[in-house]
């Protein structure tokens, strides 16, 4: 069953009872919530994801609950929990869905050390993966969302998952997090894509989420081989610069952007070195989405 097969009321009922189980690539989340807006957001942003009955194994049991007491009436707050533990301070009630998304990311990158996890976006074309490793604010999500709307399959917007055993990338394909000006940029760039109502005044500014393409969620079980690594940097009106980089530089930049490279020890080193062997690396400074996408499509040749 897909999330779209449930009504908003049906989703809400599950969230309030034993939890809504959603399969997001290699992980199953059991989500419980009484916070406003969660059911509606899941209904549209996760519409193509599989859901299962509440009984059964889940990798993560998470919840977004409302803070109790008088504050609940005066100034509602949302609390994220994993297995009943509260790892973060509450956020304003209107930020409940953003908190859920951030919390789900946190669950993965603090626990899923069977994967090498790199901070960045990943997309696939003809079985070959393009990754965009970068910290927040570099324009990677903007570029990722734009590429998803130009024929690339989304693997992940935030967490690049690599299995060190077979060096394949695993797809998460959850909603793409857009911030501040990129929201309007993407509305104009991809007018047919669904973008949620912006949530204002978060710690990251104004945040909205783009629904992953149906192809991305339908093929979420398909792995991909790393082929290209592009380190993006957006600068307003900057001329396009797309420069190849050496393997060792690529290695160190990937390690710098990894969440758990040091946790994995030599396994992480070996995996990353092998990945670098098979990939071509670039730095892309850009000020125009159309220009950088054209350049990437021209430059990123498929494997012979």
């Amino acid at each position: 069953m897909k999330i779209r097969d449930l009504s908003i009321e049906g989703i809400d009922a599950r969230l309030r009872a034993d939890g809504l189980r959603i399969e997001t690539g290699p992980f199953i989340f059991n989500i419980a919530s009484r916070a406003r807006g969660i059911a509606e957001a899941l209904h549209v942003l996760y519409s193509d994801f599989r859901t299962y009955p509440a009984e059964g194994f889940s990798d993560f049991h998470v919840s977004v609950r409302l803070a109790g007491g008088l504050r609940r009436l005066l100034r509602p707050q949302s609390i994220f929990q994993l297995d009943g533990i509260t790892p973060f301070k509450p956020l304003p009630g209107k930020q409940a869905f953003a908190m859920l998304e951030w919390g789900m990311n946190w669950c993965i990158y603090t626990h899923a050390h069977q994967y090498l996890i790199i901070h960045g976006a990943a997309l696939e074309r003809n079985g070959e993966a393009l990754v965009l490793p970068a910290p927040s604010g570099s324009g990677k999500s903007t570029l990722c969302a734009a590429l998803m709307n130009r024929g690339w399959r989304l693997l992940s917007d935030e967490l690049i998952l690599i299995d060190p055993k077979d060096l394949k990338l695993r797809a998460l394909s959850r909603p793409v997090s857009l911030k501040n000006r990129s929201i309007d940029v993407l509305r104009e760039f991809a007018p047919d894509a669904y973008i949620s109502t912006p949530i204002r005044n978060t710690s990251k500014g104004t945040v909205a989420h783009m629904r992953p393409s149906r192809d991305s969620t339908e093929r979420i079980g398909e792995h991909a081989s790393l082929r290209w690594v592009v380190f993006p940097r957006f600068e307003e009106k900057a001329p396009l610069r797309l420069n190849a980089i050496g393997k060792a530089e690529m290695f160190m930049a990937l390690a710098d952007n990894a969440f758990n490279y040091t946790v994995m020890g030599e396994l992480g080193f070996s995996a990353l070195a092998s990945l670098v062997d098979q990939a071509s690396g670039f730095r892309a400074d850009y000020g125009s989405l159309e220009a950088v996408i054209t350049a990437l499509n021209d430059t990123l040749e498929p494997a012979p």
Partner: protein
Amino acid sequence: MNVEPEYVIDAERFAWRSWAGDVVIFDRLSGDSWMMERPAGRILEFIAERGSPSFAAKRDCAVERASLSTESGREPDKVLATLIELGILIRFENTRSVD
């Protein structure tokens, strides 16, 4: 008889990968990784790939030593000393003669 020291990488502690003279080294003890660009990296690569008997006399390595001096202004022996100080290289005296 001209006697040259030999250098070997401490392979029990360090893992490494090299790409065209740029080397990334992994320290199993600390968990740290770092990069050494050529030409200094090329010298390490040379030692890693071919071993270092009569290191200083090998033609390719001699070229890299000269390149290191020219490109970076760094003395090859100082680079080697740094690598020894970091524990990456182990130096021992060769008892064999060098051509």
